[in-house]
């Protein structure tokens, strides 16, 4: 995976990582000062806690589904919560928040990851694709079509993650046989138990020779 360049000549206004880090250090110092203030002072200035909220944020620039975002987020915000709660991209689902179920699978620079296991501020300069960005306008992605045709779901909650994982599984070259698909799709739990149909959908896309 190639690193994002520190300076982006085509986008001179864009802040580089070092600059962002300097800002973070400055903010951290402010927080440190706040933390070292005697308790009585803090108590007297309870409202300062609200102000502290402003210091707790970091800038981050990233691209989601082809759209560029310049954001200011708390470092503790996961990519999943950023997508869902701040960017209103609720197609990506939270199933465990611990990287154990795959419901939150998205693509970062083309690779599938659990978005609950990565922080939003780590995505500087990254290109993120969520389930909302998979179709081309009204034309569904072949994997989306196949999931409908083969009924690769019941409740549909794990489906965005399954589909993002399935697309990556095919691109990775891990869809060579039903057994291989089952292995490489085992990071995505489907409690409704649509596994047989998910395998059928992925097999159909792979054998159909579609470009995914």
């Amino acid at each position, binding site marked *: 995976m190639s690193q994002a360049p520190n300076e982006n000549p085509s986008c001179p206004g864009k802040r580089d990582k070092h600059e962002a880090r300097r800002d973070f250090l400055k903010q951290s110092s402010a927080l440190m000062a706040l933390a070292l203030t005697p308790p009585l002072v803090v108590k007297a200035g309870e409202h300062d806690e609200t102000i502290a909220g402003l210091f707790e944020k970091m800038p981050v620039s990233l691209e989601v589904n082809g759209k560029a975002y310049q954001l200011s987020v708390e470092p503790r915000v996961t990519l999943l919560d950023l997508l*869902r709660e701040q960017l209103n991209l609720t197609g990506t689902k939270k199933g465990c928040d*611990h990287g154990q*179920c795959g*419901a939150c699978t998205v693509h970062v620079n083309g690779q599938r990851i659990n978005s609950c296991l990565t922080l939003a501020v780590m995505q500087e300069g990254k290109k993120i694709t969520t389930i909302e960005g998979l179709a081309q306008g009204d034309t569904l992605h072949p994997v989306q079509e196949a999931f409908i045709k083969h009924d690769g779901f019941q409740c*549909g909650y794990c489906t965005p993650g399954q589909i993002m994982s399935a697309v990556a599984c095919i691109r990775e070259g891990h869809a060579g046989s039903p057994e291989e698909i089952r*292995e490489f799709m085992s990071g995505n739990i*489907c409690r*409704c138990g649509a596994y047989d149909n998910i395998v059928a959908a992925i097999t159909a896309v792979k054998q159909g020779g579609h470009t995914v």
Partner: protein
Amino acid sequence: MKKQAVGQSMDRVDGRLKVTGTARYFADHQPEGMLYAALVCSPVSSGRITAIDAAKALRAPGVADVVSHLNAPPVPGYKADNPNPKQGLKIFYDDRIYSNGQPVAIVVANTLERAVHAASLVKVTYAQEVHKTDMDENMGQAFQHKNMKDYLRGEADAWKKAPVHLEAEYNIPIEVHNPMELAGIIAHWETPDQLTVYAKTQGVKSVQQTLKTLFQLPESQITVHSRFVGGAFGMGLRIWPMEVATILAAKKIRKPVKLVITRKDMFTLVGYRPAARQRIGIGATTDGKLTGITHEAVANTSPYEDFTEAIVNMSRMMYACPNVNTRYQLVPLNLSTPVWMRGPGEATGAFALESAIDELAHQLKMDPLQLRILNHADTDPEKHLPYSSKYLKEAYEMGAAKIGWQQRSQTPGQLQENGWLVGYGMSSGVFSAGRGRATASATLKADGTLVIRSAAADIGPGTATAMVQIAADATGIDAKKIEFLLGESAYPEAPRQGGSSTVSTVGSAVNDVCRSLQQKLGEMASAGIPAFKGVKAENIQHEDGQLVAGNTRLDYAALLQLQQLPELTVTTTSQAGDERKHYAMYSFSVHFTKVHVHPATGVVRIKHIVSVADSGTVVNTKTARSQMIGGVVGGIGMALTEEALIDHRYGRYVNNNYADYHVPVNADTPPTDVLFINKKDPVINPMGAKGMGEIALIGFAAAVSNAVFNATGKRVRDLPITPDKLI
């Protein structure tokens, strides 16, 4: 005439929404000004709260409030006199702690991260008391619930006198529904007495009724939205205390509040399949005729509520047996209240009965399939009624042929493939085929489209798709022009989605409202359209969305246009008649498995599954198959991996996450063949469809344990069948 829609493998009507991420589940909504909640839960399992120090949390950035029993608005319904002391956990009512993980406070802040962090700052102190969470140590506390009387047919414990008999104990641990979607709610008091919630529920009307009782508001002032539900398997059959906690917080703060609980809290806040200890005594003549079955079960419940289910019922009616007695008892433990989990008690009971049948067959040196056929009940031995339909023998035959049952060795441990022991197993399942009461409205529009509404739910089986197919056949209108809307409390009454009854109950209402619509259109044509003048409404035929009388044909849409009506709505309520007095109605399933067991490691791999459903008419062969394979996957978990483990020193779950509580993943599931009898039940409802959701799982675990016995000669009576039990 158009091709029938019922019976087709139509794609789901909401498939596109589900594959594009645009299906909106409760947590995907974001009312203006919404705040986020996080729970503070008790680390002790019994005792009292002595103090809550929320000062630090309240000072944290963005925190709106910390709500607990110390400052929660009152729940009027909690104060109402209730003669039953076990009316459930009254959240934030007093200082009592009944179980580990019980919510003691809810923290609300303007971001999720702030709420979660602030919850960690709330300091709660407790006066701890001795807790009881170990089922085996508390069997002496078992009591009989007043609604669960002993059952006796013929002579009690007759199995003891049989020439061939056995007695065995079968244990099931706590299993947790663990749907993919985390539970929670968005609560919004639009005015001080107007409540709107986005819920994760199997019944919007049921939630509305509970909130009506709790908050003593008229129904018209409570709105429940729940269009998409990310799985539930029973946990959405009732409202849970943390949902009430969120509603209370929203009331106090006067802003919409969203709570999404953690996976860990899914083990303690939203029910589970109770642990059960079962004892079966079974006896037969030397040629295999059953003479007696005794089935006794003890399951756990919570300290504040008695949860009962039908664990021992299958033993009363599955086989023709003259002497049967059953007993069912509860043990209260310091755990939250269980709730029906797919298959529910019948799945627990079927594991015991269908294992015992296999053990008896082994003692008799008989093929367990032959033993089942020999003791097939031709009429219901419990109700003494004929079956509305029963094709169980055909199901046995179809399944046996598909799995290759003739390859099974009667003597265990005889077959091997690539160094693995090979075994074949089978079991049966049965579940009552119900039909409740539901209302649907049908709105025909002048453009020829039809919209049907009912407050039904879809937790995954594809409710709307099936309803569209039923409506397409009832009206002759093309399925593409029909929309079925559900999951809104404002819609006409429908029951909860549970007990395998949605197609039967809501489908009947859809069928009947379509007939009412046609009748109304006929009357309009007869009265107001010159071409139909003199033709009585009842003599007007309906074909392909048209009114027909002789050579005269008129589109429904054209009729509305001629009458200058933009739309026409009719509403119909539908329920069963007295069929149940005359017939026993059940769905049946048969499960066959072929397993591999590794002789050195004890690893069990299921290689092939065949499940056969006798569930009447299959409305949609695609979604029905998905429902069956889904039940099977749940059954694989029940058989091989699922077990919620408690450290009894603390009364706390130790594997309360997806990494340690193993639900089956894709690689755990083999190719599965689903076969349908697909014969219409002539009695149950207009479609002839019995239920399917429960039978998909009922009995499955026994089909695995029986196959493991066939492979190894080792009988595992404690689920799950983990490798340590085989080496």
